[in-house]
């Protein structure tokens, strides 16, 4: 049984796909998963993932998402007690599910209608500077996790690419990956307030009219 074919594993799939959508190859050998145990651990995974990405570099979380070692390690941590036999980088010949993007956009949800949502898109593949595309996506195509993350302002990646299945078959897919905001502890927020306070103190404040 492969991870991809597990039933009721949307959350896991979502995490898993994040590790491979950029084209990296991660093995998903046979696995047996206790779903309740998985759900509990998935929550812990969420929390850990968010805390890991909490820094003042806006790109850090994104870089982190594409850091295969970090992800592989985290997934190992998640699935090991669930008797997943192995999750590791292997050659591309067998047991591999990967996604090679043909076109990628970064989008922000601008409106949600009864049967679709509208988003502004920045074409990442062509290196656009500003969003020039708008798209409406049918809500019926979203899974439960995507629906949970859908709200006005939400940021996502839309990837159209070539997916290689563990059995070696290839298929074209269109995937949406909604981003989550790193959670911050009260201590981190207090540190941000203090840091900004020091920055403000160092500025030359002057309220006289400009001349």
């Amino acid at each position, binding site marked *: 049984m492969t991870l991809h074919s597990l039933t009721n594993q949307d959350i896991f799939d979502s995490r898993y796909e994040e590790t491979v959508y950029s084209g990296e190859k991660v093995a998903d050998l046979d696995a047996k998963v206790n779903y309740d145990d998985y759900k509990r651990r998935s929550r812990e995974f969420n929390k850990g993932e968010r805390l890991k990405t909490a*820094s003042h570099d806006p790109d850090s979380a994104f870089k982190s998402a594409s850091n295969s070692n970090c992800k592989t390690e985290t997934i190992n941590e998640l699935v090991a007690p669930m008797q997943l036999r192995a999750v590791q980088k292997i050659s591309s010949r067998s047991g591999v599910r990967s996604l090679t993007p043909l076109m990628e956009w970064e989008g922000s949800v601008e409106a949600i209608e009864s049967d679709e949502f509208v988003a502004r898109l920045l074409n990442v593949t062509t290196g656009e500077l500003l969003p*020039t595309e708008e798209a409406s996506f049918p809500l019926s195509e979203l899974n439960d996790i995507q629906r949970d993350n859908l709200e006005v302002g939400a940021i996502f990646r839309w990837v159209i690419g070539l997916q290689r299945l563990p059995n070696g078959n290839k298929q074209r897919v269109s995937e949406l990956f909604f981003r989550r905001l790193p959670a911050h502890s009260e201590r981190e927020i207090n540190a941000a307030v203090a840091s900004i306070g020091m920055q403000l103190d160092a500025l030359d*404040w002057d309220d006289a009219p*400009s001349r």
Partner: protein
Amino acid sequence: MPWIGMTPPQDDEVEISVFGPGYGESILIHAGSGRWIVIDSCLADDRRTPAPLKYMSDIGLDASTDVCAVVATHWHDDHIKGLSAILRACVKADYWYSAALTKGEFLAFLAVHDNQPTTLDRGGTEMLKCLELMEEPGRKIKRLLEDTLVADWPASRLAHGHATRLLALSPSSKQFDQFLRMIGAELYELPLKAKTRLTAGRNDLSIASVLEVGALSVLLGADLEHCQDPDLGWAAVIHNRSGKGPKSAAIKVPHHGSAGAHHDQVWSELLAEDVVSVVTPWSLAGKKLPTETDKVRISSLSKAAYITAEKPQTLKKRYPRAVTKHIRRSRVEITSSVYRCGHVRIRFPEADLGKQVIELFNGAAQY
């Protein structure tokens, strides 16, 4: 390439240039004798250069020496895109922005919220960049509240011979207090989803202002909206300003001409009967401002009404065949269009007589 007809104003001419590319706006003011003020920022057609900098370059001016003040009316990305580039170029300029936004709690809110995995632009990120730039020696940052004088020149300093000032009309002190209370509460309850927008993304902290040159007045509405509370929004401005100073001969219509920013008394008490209005459009996710109803309302109240960009240009994008096929199969409807960054320029050659020369560039139109 410089736009045709672009010449710098005379020393004794007052000029208001309004730029708007369909999503964003910027205003450039020549107060006289080579003194320039930039309010907000949007990008020119190259999608890189801030429109006011491009215009100044096109007419042969040096922004590094001629701009004395840069004002950020609020932090939404349709008003602030490219502002850090303006501040970087205009090394002599003071940087003015809302006093509420200089509070550590708000900036920490931005810093924490902007720690997100995205390449999409967000106004908060640009605001933090601007703040970092002001750490350089010699740069001055200034706080704005209602009744703050942004710029003030005596008549003797300007070639047209009129005392000139730019006065902030908002935010009111009540808006200021409300905002800080809200930020204090929200900072520790950040949303768990990565978003381009904050719940704090309202327009009530927007800085409306008035330029007064002798008997000439121009009202610059920013994105200030109308609230029922008399101490907030346009109601507070009217209460504070009614009967003070000359009625304005021109207005940059607030919040892209939306009905939510309209207040009858602004038009009856703060504006002259023969007022000229300029609106910048806003277009996102199939929604557009001003609506046709807004246009009818504004033009009926104005001697002449102008818009910086009237119609978007549809872009024909070519995707690989496999991508096109899959877009179709996914039932995703994708469109692509852009506005040109239009420009409405109003010059007042004889400021005290109210004579106006209005010119339209790059797709701007009268409606």
